[in-house]
């Protein structure tokens, strides 16, 4: 049963550009990009129970890195450009995480909030590099001699990258890093006492989270074509938080479902700017009061014998 459902999803996913109008191909790509960010944020929040309001900042760093690599990198192939975006963002993540992760949850949250604002200010002020508020045009992604210029081509690139990252996220608990993070989630004190270096692994979780977001940033840059700092404001970070709270903390399928719901809602409510925060705020409060564990948690309770 579960396999059949999964198979249907895969087939529809692969045939989507042939079935749907162009705009919906773009929207589906955006869902996957947001799902990557949500998975990344969930690696941090789901395991360490620390909230980040800085992921829009990480997304911006990944996006601008990709754009600049495209402009000055001399036709770098897309996978390398994405890898570059991920690595640069992860490095920034480590630089921010090293001091902040020794702190309790509350402080990390506020520090990442501050980080998001600093990134936007930095983009505005480094206008020789980033073109400031005027916006930066992103050259199309290249794969050897081809440039990915159609929505369909970009969609398949996004799908492949998302699939790889989903597989990695699902398997992370089977690796040393995943086990360490699980131990930390259950009890930091017990983990530390068993010889798990808590601070080191938390920094690694932060770096991984930033890496995911950086890669997503690169894909995002190619999707929207023009970057400007106001696309990465703090409300985008809040959207990411809504995705993982609604989807379910620490759940990979939950991240994807949450990303899909929030992205589609965002699109549907584009004409009703006042209702958007009202609905998202209500979702947050409602989830905390009535559905802890989000959609993934509710699903688990429904299907459990």
């Amino acid at each position, binding site marked *: 049963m579960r396999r059949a459902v999964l198979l249907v999803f895969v087939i529809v996913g692969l045939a989507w550009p042939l079935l749907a109008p162009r705009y919906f191909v773009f929207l589906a790509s955006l869902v996957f990009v947001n799902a990557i960010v949500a998975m990344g944020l969930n690696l941090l929040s789901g395991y360490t*129970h620390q*909230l980040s309001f800085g992921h829009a900042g990480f997304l911006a760093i990944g996006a601008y890195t990709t754009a600049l690599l495209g402009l000055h990198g001399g036709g770098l192939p897309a996978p390398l450009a994405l890898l570059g975006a991920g690595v640069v963002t992860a490095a920034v993540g480590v630089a*921010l995480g090293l*001091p*902040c992760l*020794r*702190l309790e*949850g*509350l*402080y990390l*949250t*506020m*520090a990442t*909030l*501050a*980080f998001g*604002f*600093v990134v936007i*200010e930095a983009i*505005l*002020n480094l206008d020789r590099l980033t073109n400031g508020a005027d916006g930066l045009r992103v050259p199309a992604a290249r794969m050897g001699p081809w440039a990915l210029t159609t929505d369909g081509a970009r969609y398949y690139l996004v799908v492949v990258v998302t699939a790889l990252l989903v597989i990695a996220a699902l398997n992370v608990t089977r690796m040393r890093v995943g086990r360490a993070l699980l131990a930390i989630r259950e009890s930091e*004190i017990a983990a*530390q*006492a068993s010889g798990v270096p808590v601070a080191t692994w938390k920094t690694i979780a932060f770096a991984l989270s930033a890496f995911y977001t950086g890669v997503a940033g690169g894909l995002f840059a190619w999707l929207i074509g023009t970057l400007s700092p106001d696309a990465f404001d703090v409300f985008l970070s*809040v959207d990411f*938080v809504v995705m993982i*709270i609604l989807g379910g903390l620490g759940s990979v399928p939950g991240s994807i479902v949450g990303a899909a719901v929030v992205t589609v809602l965002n699109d549907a409510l584009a004409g009703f700017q*006042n*209702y*958007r*925060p*009202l609905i*998202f*705020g*209500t*979702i*947050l*409060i409602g*989830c*905390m*009061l009535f559905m*802890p564990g989000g959609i993934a948690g509710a699903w688990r309770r429904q299907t459990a014998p």
Partner: protein
Amino acid sequence: MVISGLATGSIYALMALALVIVYNATRALNFAQGEMLMVSAFLAWTAQRAFGLPFWASIVVAIGGAALLGFIVERVIVRRSPTATHWDVLIITLGLSLVLRALAGMVWSHDEFPFPSLFSNRPVVVGPVRLAPVSLGIIGASLSLMLALYVLFTRTRLGRAMRAVAQNPRAARLMGVSVERMSSISWVLAAMVGAVAGVLVAPVVFLSTKMGLIVISGFTAAVLGGFGSMPGAVAGGMLLGVIENLAPLYLPSAIRYAVPFLLLIGILTVRPAGLLGRATTRKV
């Protein structure tokens, strides 16, 4: 320059105090504090505009409305949360801040409104310096409120009970202090302090739904002084206000808006316990 910095600083200090009051009683951060301030400032404005109340009465309306809002939020929403860890409350109040801002936008629109000031605009000349009465008024009003809070926390039974809960909720409960009631009172008190800050700051920054962002400066101030310490919150607020006002003199002016954030990251890196805070060591 320094005086107007101190004026901004006393607003931050009040904001920080409101956050610390709730934090001490419940170990949680109220992310919606800024939006609650914004709503109470709008209430004062409406009382004045629509019902033609005198200024003093509208302030009373704002403080009363804020107290009611704080009470409702604590009773109806926060207390229902199944576990009420700081994580839960943070996300709930984050949701609440979105909802409050959206509702305020529907009721009062997202425009900016001028807010009448208590104090005249004619500068006061003291020796070689000219001082804006607005700044002096803000500093004076804030200081008297802080003094009142100091008396409340050190001289009254209620204040002692609240400090007991802050120190050790379980011991306080064993001594017959109702932790739930103290939590409720803390939310109300914090909302009232926030309302005063709102009425004081509204003439300076204009009344708008964006006012709520001041919560970040308030948090920075509280961290600067050592989170949980009330004198620390006041000192941190004043310091932040002065630094923010003086920074553009020595650094590129574009940096002004990044100052609180850079300062926040800096202080968390170097001295997370804050200037007046005591470092807490955790046993492993």
